[in-house]
């Protein structure tokens, strides 16, 4: 069984609640490591700008690029749920290696500011599922833009779209994520709500 995320980009207001809720829950100190991150994408021109937000964490790929890249096999995929996890004891540390980070197109591998910080990343809040709880980002999002669960259930509920503004699909990785993308208006074309 493979777990994954759902992200409804049309609901995301770029508020960073997910970023902060995650750091608080997992006790990540203030600093450069964020297991969940929010990008702001701003396009087009005044008076019809286009803005979208993209919240990403780790897509727990079926074929993770980070796992292949790691020279010491510190990264593995759990058999029972496909969650990609890192063993920080085995990790060589930021000062010696960053191959996972270079391999991942989505910035999932993160490093803290401490000396030779060991790699850390989203673990789909694996310790919460046995308590009947979803990840803190999902449970915390004020616009309920996130969901998580077995990816086949996510697909059944939300569809099959794997596109979003600011996101590029990585062919070989087989990502465990479904999106509801924000539709982009063609540049120069005014949005109109005449004749409601």
């Amino acid at each position, binding site marked *: 069984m493979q777990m994954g995320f759902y992200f409804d980009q049309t609901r*995301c207001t770029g*508020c*960073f609640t997910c970023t902060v809720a995650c750091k608080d829950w997992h006790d990540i*100190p*203030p600093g450069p490591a964020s297991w969940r991150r929010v990008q702001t994408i701003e396009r087009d021109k*005044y008076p019809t700008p286009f803005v979208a937000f993209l919240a990403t964490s780790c897509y727990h790929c079926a074929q993770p690029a980070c796992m292949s890249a790691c020279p010491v096999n510190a990264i593995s995929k759990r058999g029972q749920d496909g969650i990609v996890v890192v063993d920080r004891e085995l990790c060589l540390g930021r000062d010696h290696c960053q191959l996972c980070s270079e391999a991942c197109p989505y910035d999932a591998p993160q490093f803290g500011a401490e000396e030779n910080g060991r790699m850390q990343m989203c673990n789909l809040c694996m310790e919460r599922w046995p308590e009947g709880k979803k990840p803190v980002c999902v*449970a915390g999002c*004020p616009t309920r833009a996130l969901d998580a669960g077995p990816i086949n259930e996510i697909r059944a509920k939300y569809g099959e779209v794997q596109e979003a503004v600011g996101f590029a699909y990585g062919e070989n990785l087989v990502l465990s994520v479904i999106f509801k993308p924000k539709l982009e208006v063609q540049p120069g074309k005014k949005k109109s709500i005449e004749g*409601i």
Partner: protein
Amino acid sequence: MPTAKAGQSMDEVKIVPTGGCYDCGGRCLHKVHVRDGVAIRVETDDAEEPQLRSCARGRAYRQQVYSPDRLRFPLKRTGPRGSGQFERVSWEEALDTVASELLRIKETYGPKSILVVTLSGSAGSLHTGPMTVCWLLSSFGGYTPFWGDASAEGAIFAARATYGTLTNGNTRDDLVNSRLILLWGVNPATSIFSTNTRYYLLKAREAGARVVVIDPRYSDTAATFADRWIPAKPGTDTAVMAAMAYVMITENLHDQRFLDKYTLGFEKFKDYVMGIEDGVAKTPTWAEAKSGVPADTIVWLARQYATNKPAALIPGYAPGRTAYGEQYHRMAAVLASMTGNVGIHGGGAACFERPLVGPMVPPPFSKLFEGGTYEARLKQLDVPRRLRSRPHAMCLWDCILKGTVGGYPIDLKMAYIAFANPLNQFPNINKGVEALKKLEFIVVHEQFMTATARFADIVLPVTTVWERNDFSRPWTGGSYFLYMNKVIEPLLDVRSDRDICRDLASRLGIQDPFWDLPEEDAVRWVTESMEDVMPEVVDYERFKRDGVYKIKRPGPVIAFEKQIEDPDNNPFPTLSGKIEIYSQLVADLNNPEIPPIPKHLDPWEGAEDPLSQKYPLQLLTHHHKTRAHSCFDNNLLLNDLEPQSLWISTQDAQSRGIRNGDKVRVFNDRGETIIQAKVTERIIPGVVSLGEGAWYQPDKKGRDRAGSPNVLTRDHYSPAGAFPFNTSLVQVGKYVSDTSSLD
């Protein structure tokens, strides 16, 4: 910061429900995990929907509580005032000093020379200005407060004049009933005003509602929820609305039946709009010249609001925080009547927005804000009369500096400040610095070394909401109560605001059984004094255990539903019993700057002010997404997510040679700030914006380096009391660093 251990079983952990943070229109639930007396992590509401989910600021509250720069012990000033040089002193010495200064100043100058500044810095009903410092100093013999509600004085004036009550809002779950929602100068994605406004907006859109956002900026709300964004210059919303009225009248789209049945004074308003009164027809072309909104857009907006029923015009308070901002709030209410949207599901009375359920001000006090005789109502609207005994908050610094010689009611000698950061948050910081230097004594309750605390003679470190018990009710749109359970013991050597006042009371010779009540009993006493709470909650012990009580309602609560359904038996609480488009009370104020019908008045420091030759850009002070006013600016989990910047249009940046990320100077005659520029398509040209609440950081040349907008704002109030934070003119230039070490 205290840590949670990975793999630690949840069994040894106690979960304490509490809620609320700082100065915020949300009141969210926090379930704090505590192990060995230490808060280790937070969850939010996970009961049935609608859940009271906390935002990024609330999720960073643990970082606030355990922040390395939390003030840990009382401080006494050693260097010049404002230098930030302090030494640690004992609580005994600190409190003895405060008490002896209170006594000395009262003895020498009288108690009115003591200024009290308390605002809404902390969530709660017991740990508030009125129940702590104000209560204490009332027993002491009195003090001078300031006058005015910074958030919404214009809306308060408009609500009283138009409806005779502040209870004009529908609960936010009513939005799902709207066909059209106009979010006018309101940004629920960022500024939480009712925890679930965003959620109900989403539900409304799913149900087919269309949303229009009117705002000088393409806010995150516009980006997420709007089908159309209409940029308008600050201080011109009233003109746009007047022109909308013109369109409705000329195209006969207004609801004359509604106006005849429920309102008073529409004919006089019509004469104004059509140009019969003053010879100037308030056409869309007229409004375009003032606002920057194209005439055909105004026509479109008027038709949309008039013909899509029901429609909710939600007027944010920001456009009312301008010169003559009270007129905007009056005008919005008139449009709601012209379109027949008052008192119906999916509509809205478009004024102060407080619904009947869960109002911030509990029933015993609400009665003070409603009804009454002609004289009583007139007194409430009469700003000069209100200012006979205390200064308007916008002019606090001027009052300190000029005193009775300058026409103010009092010569202030001392300031007692709690739950507030006035140096940072009131206008004209440079004048504030001079004023604070002039006072003989300043005491500040604080958690952190804010700009205001830096000017204190004594700083008293206080608890956060996790370190004490309290009760809270949300400001608007919420139908629940929170029991803010104490989560941990007070850290280090901090005390609660209440305990400080209790300890001062004994030093001041005040015997008051209120101070003897243990904290939890005092919370219960406050809760029981609100006559609507206990009949609803019933089981107080269960309420404490749960931390929240949600009122079950069959559906949305609609303001003025009865007044519309059965007007004969349910008049509006005005003197006439009608919605007063024309207000005789306002006419009797006899002030041409406060006309009895809503009107557009050209603002000072607006685009048409001759000062714009020198300072051509209007300054907006939007709410920043990782702060709640000045709270959280020092929070390390938050403050790098969206760094402070000056929002400036591509057009205005290019003509100044400014690129995105460049450091710029923003300045006028009142001060200067240096900050990085965000060159963006998301703001109307001619307007720049600085997120308010950034902590003022003067350099050695007296220039602010934090992008704190109040070095630029004008200390002046609108005639009916509104706080014009969004009415200032500035210039912006590229910052060229001189190579001296002062930079």
